[in-house]
Every structure is written in structure tokens, then in C-alpha cells.
């Protein structure tokens, strides 16, 4: 059981680190948003699943899974909200400097 928890936590931390590298290296706002939203959601879910497996059956692991469910619902919502705010305010894309997206 501990080995399974270590595997889940390590893969989750790998995705978190990959998301951080993506937000550092990508050229414009929307690709950065792509890396941040997907990698953060998957990495946090895998890490919390591993921690819940390590904790065992009980109230604490149920609360950890509740936080994971909350992040699964709210992280794509937050990504969508901030991307729509950028799209409505003509944040330019890389390679297309003078583009007016909406309005």
C-alpha cells in the first residue's frame, strides 16, 4: 500500500513540476494557461489520491478526497474565468500582435 502511495505522489509531483516548467517557458498567455490548468489539476489529484491511500481508511482520507473533489470542480472553472477575462480584453497571442479577438 505504501509503494502504491509513493508511486501516486511521485507521478503527481512530476506533473506539478511539468506545469511549472510550462508556465515558465511557453510564449504567450493562452499557452501558459493551458499548461497551468491541466497540469495543476492532474498533479494535485494524483498527489492527494496517493496521500489518501497512505493515510488509510478513515475521516482524514475522506477529507483529503473531498479537497481533491473540490479542486477537480473549481480549478477548470477558475481557468475558464481568467481565460475569458483575457479574451474579452484583447490579450494578444504570440505571432499575431495586432489581433482584436472580441468586442
Amino acid at each position, binding site marked *: 500500500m*505504501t509503494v502504491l502511495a*509513493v508511486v501516486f*505522489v*511521485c507521478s*503527481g*509531483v512530476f506533473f*506539478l*513540476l511539468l*506545469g*511549472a*516548467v510550462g*508556465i*515558465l517557458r511557453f510564449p504567450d*498567455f493562452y499557452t*501558459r*494557461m493551458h499548461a*497551468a490548468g491541466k497540469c*495543476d489539476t492532474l*498533479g*494535485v489529484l494524483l*498527489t*492527494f489520491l496517493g*496521500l489518501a491511500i*497512505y*493515510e488509510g481508511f478513515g*475521516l*482524514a482520507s475522506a*477529507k*483529503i478526497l*473531498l*479537497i481533491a473533489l*473540490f*479542486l477537480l470542480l*473549481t*480549478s477548470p*472553472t*477558475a481557468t475558464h*474565468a*481568467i481565460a*475569458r*477575462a*483575457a479574451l*474579452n*480584453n484583447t*490579450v494578444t497571442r504570440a505571432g499575431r500582435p495586432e489581433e482584436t479577438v472580441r468586442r
Partner: protein
Amino acid sequence: MQVFFLATSLVILLAVLLALYRVIKGPAIIDRIVGLNVIGTKTITIILLTGFLFERIEFFIDIAFVYALINFIGLLTFSKYFERKGANDWRTGK
């Protein structure tokens, strides 16, 4: 197992530093806010790992839940504000 949790926390701290570079250096203010959201999500994981490190997980879970709520509501408030105000650079005003 404590060494594993400490090493995991340090690797996530490295990811936080990579995102902090984007917060400091990001060209528009909306890039900084995305970096802050990423840092907040990693902070929730670090809080839970700290709970496992000190073997007081039943206290640290509630702190992590409140931090997740504050992170989500803060980002929604920022995006609502920038939909009306404009999301460009605060230094150049473009």
C-alpha cells in the same frame, strides 16, 4: 517515510520558485495572476505534506481546505475585476 515527504515538499518548492519567476517577470498583470493561482494550488499540496511530516494531519486538512476556498474565490474576483477594468500591463498602460 518522513524523508520522502520532506523531499516531495522540496521538489514542489522548486516548482513554486519556477512559477514565482513568472509572477515577478510576467509581461502583463494577468500573467502574474495565473502564476499566483499556480502557486496557491502548490501551497495546498505543501500544507498537506507538512501535516504528514508532523503527523498532525487532522489539523492541517482544514487549513488546506480553507486555503483552497480562498484561492478559488480570489481568482474569480480578479477575473471579474479584469473583465471590466482591462487586463493589460500596469506599467505601460497599453
